[in-house]
């Protein structure tokens, strides 16, 4: 099949403003969007810049906007797009550095503010594992899947309008610890998120849930955090 790929271009060393380049590519329906980008960079235009690594949806490097929606370029097959006209653009809401590469700095800074690590200094007397029932483990399973690709946060209208909002990804990672039976810092995290730039910025647009390549029920996780703040109980 022949696809027409329209790619956002911006080279800060040359361009005053961005433009789009169009590449016509002969590809297989089962090719990933990433395969096409790789081919363009390798064989047509070496200056095209984008990030990628694992190429199968687990490392989170290649989140980008494809036909107006956030995806990992390695998890979208051409046949699944339903069209041969493909527009590829960088994530919204983070500064563009070059072509499809955005500055991930602000995203990781938000992530770090929610204490995204287990807090519990008490170790079992026998030195072995802490006990946790399968049900307790299941309680936070969904939010352990996050790969920090930023597809959710950069699809969020509240984040677009104010980049100080901590964003869905940070809340997902707070949720992962708040609801972990082994953790002891839920109160602190809930306090951090009960802030004008915390969970209340979420307007339940569900964009994040739709954008998540790991199919995390993000809006639900945010709602659970909101409820925990309101009730003062983690259930």
């Amino acid at each position, binding site marked *: 099949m022949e696809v027409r790929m329209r790619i956002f271009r911006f080279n800060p060393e040359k361009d005053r403003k961005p433009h789009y380049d169009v590449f016509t590519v002969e590809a297989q329906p089962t090719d990933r969007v990433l395969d096409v980008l790789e081919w363009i960079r*390798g064989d047509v235009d070496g200056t095209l810049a984008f990030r990628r690594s694992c190429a*199968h949806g687990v490392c989170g490097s290649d989140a980008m906007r494809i036909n107006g929606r956030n995806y990992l370029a390695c998890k979208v097959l051409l046949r699944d797009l339903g069209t041969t006209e493909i527009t590829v653009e960088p994530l919204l809401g983070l500064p563009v550095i070059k072509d499809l590469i955005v500055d*991930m700095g602000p995203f990781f800074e938000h992530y770090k503010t929610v204490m995204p690590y*287990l807090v519990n200094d008490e170790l079992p007397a026998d030195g072995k*594992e802490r006990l946790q029932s399968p049900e307790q483990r299941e309680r936070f399973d969904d939010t*352990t899947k996050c790969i920090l690709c930023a597809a959710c946060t950069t699809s969020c209208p509240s984040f677009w309008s104010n980049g100080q909002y901590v964003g869905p990804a940070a809340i997902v990672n707070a949720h992962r610890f708040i609801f*972990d039976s082994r953790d002891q810092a839920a109160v602190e995290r809930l306090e951090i998120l009960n802030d004008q730039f915390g969970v209340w910025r979420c307007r339940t647009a569900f964009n994040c849930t739709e954008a998540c390549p790991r199919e995390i029920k993000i809006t639900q996780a945010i709602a659970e955090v909101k409820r925990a703040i309101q009730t003062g109980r983690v259930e």
Partner: protein
Amino acid sequence: MTQTHVFDVVIVGGGGAGLMAALNASRSAKTAVLSKLYPTRSHTGAAQGGIGAALGNLEEDHWEWHAFDTVKGSDYLGDQDAIEFMCREAVQAVYDLEHFGLPFSRTADGRIAQRPFGGHTNNLTKKPVRRSCYAADRTGHMILQTLYQQCIKNGINFYDEFQVLDLILSDGKAAGVVAVELATGELHVFHSKAVVFATGGHGRMWEITSNAYAYTGDGVAITLRNGIPAEDMEFFQFHPTGIYKLGILITEAVRGEGGILFNGKGERFMERYAPTIKDLASRDVISRAIYLEIKEGRGINGKDYVYLDVRPETVNKYAELDGRTRPDGTPYRVTAEEILSKIPDITDFCRTYLGVDPVKDPMPIQPTAHYAMGGIPTNKYGEVVVDDQGTVLPGLYAAGECACVSVHGANRLGTNSLVDLVVFGKYAGIKAAEYAKGADLPRLPADPDAGVRRQLDNLLNGSGRERAAQIGRELRKVMMDDVGVFRTEEGLKQAVEKVRELRERYKQVRVSDGGKIFNTELLNTWELGCLLDAALVTAVSALERKESRGAHAREDYPRRDDENWLKHTLAWLNEDGSVRLGYKPVVITQYAPKERVY
């Protein structure tokens, strides 16, 4: 202008080994982690099935059994002192990970869940044992995330998207590294007392691979270029179950949960190759079996793939035939729902890339280049050793897939990559910090980044007669055809010649992007140079080894030859492109080599 930074310990790579090293080194030494990716993008995150440790949570198990299985799995090429050390340490390492917060799956009584995995056995009954500690089928993801979380908690210094291009040696000691900052294109010198390489593998030299684009052998190539040998490079593992054509990994856990391999005639062919352990034989054994089935025309529809079938009706049928039981002695039977809960990511891969539902359809699979057993030679403390006498290069350490301790020998057992990176990452970090404490900052040579500037200038100013993308394609093809699962004298000679030709042609490449900011073309082209160096050493080492052992299967020398080849290869890459080979003995403690039958 090149900026200079000073640290006690510099760690190159932000995957599992690098982060473990960082957590341990930073307790007493000023430490920095340099990673060409954001650390959470590292390939540790792609590991699926589990980390082996004889916790014995579900049945009797002992670290000594784990050690014997690892020795046997290595086809007796692993160093037994290091293997014993690793398997004993593995138990504490897994508890450490749990204490760090790793969300392991759990048993009914709340302990860390464990599942069977290829080559891991009860040494008395020879049957599979539940040793692989797992978090669904995303154990590597959980390890990587957990270690990164701990690094944030401990305020580790990260230099994200800094690609290391050279090692600085001074008076025979490590003195730091040279790196380029991707966002600016500026060079940085990291002047340090100790350097830890944790740069991962080099599977991107093969066409069908489970490896990330980032797996370009940077660490091995950089050390080779600095006169340090590479060990056992001819041993590269092909994982038997990669998604057909894409190479994406389908974890062994699928077979641990009862999945069965079938050929085009619908036969469970592993019964013929490994009568006792069948579909859970070692990876090299199964990859060869698949190749032979395909060669005999028994692929699916005569093509070059077979089926991996984890549909509940299949699992239950063969569990009954095998007499498989649960820990409480009841017969092993599963539902589609249970399977999906154990392998959610595999299910997602199959749906995304194949349009196949693994509990309704069998998965088309073929062997995929997966793991480097060989690499930078180290001892069990992660110290880099540079000759056959165990001579340590002061201040230089390596851990994880880029290193060759050697605990994997000729073939790595499933789950042992994660054991390796946690255990040896930890010890490399501890030892590097200890060393730094007693060492002065080495003298920095004049113009430490001159070599890097020359390399990059060459890439930017080549004749342009050759294209990097084309050289990469030809490299991946020749490695797949001639340095793959089965090898012959003729094929290997051809491969050596071809890789030499490609290395020459590489000199004629010109990078078209002359910019500094995120010049990904320049860095990808530099990485191709690393792959070419690692490939040359791999092919030359393989050509010379005239026996079949583990992952190195020679059609013309089909038997293991302990008399002549029970030894590690050391390969030096000379500046003129020639490769010098040497050998060193295997450390044997208590397991005398014997025939390997599963």
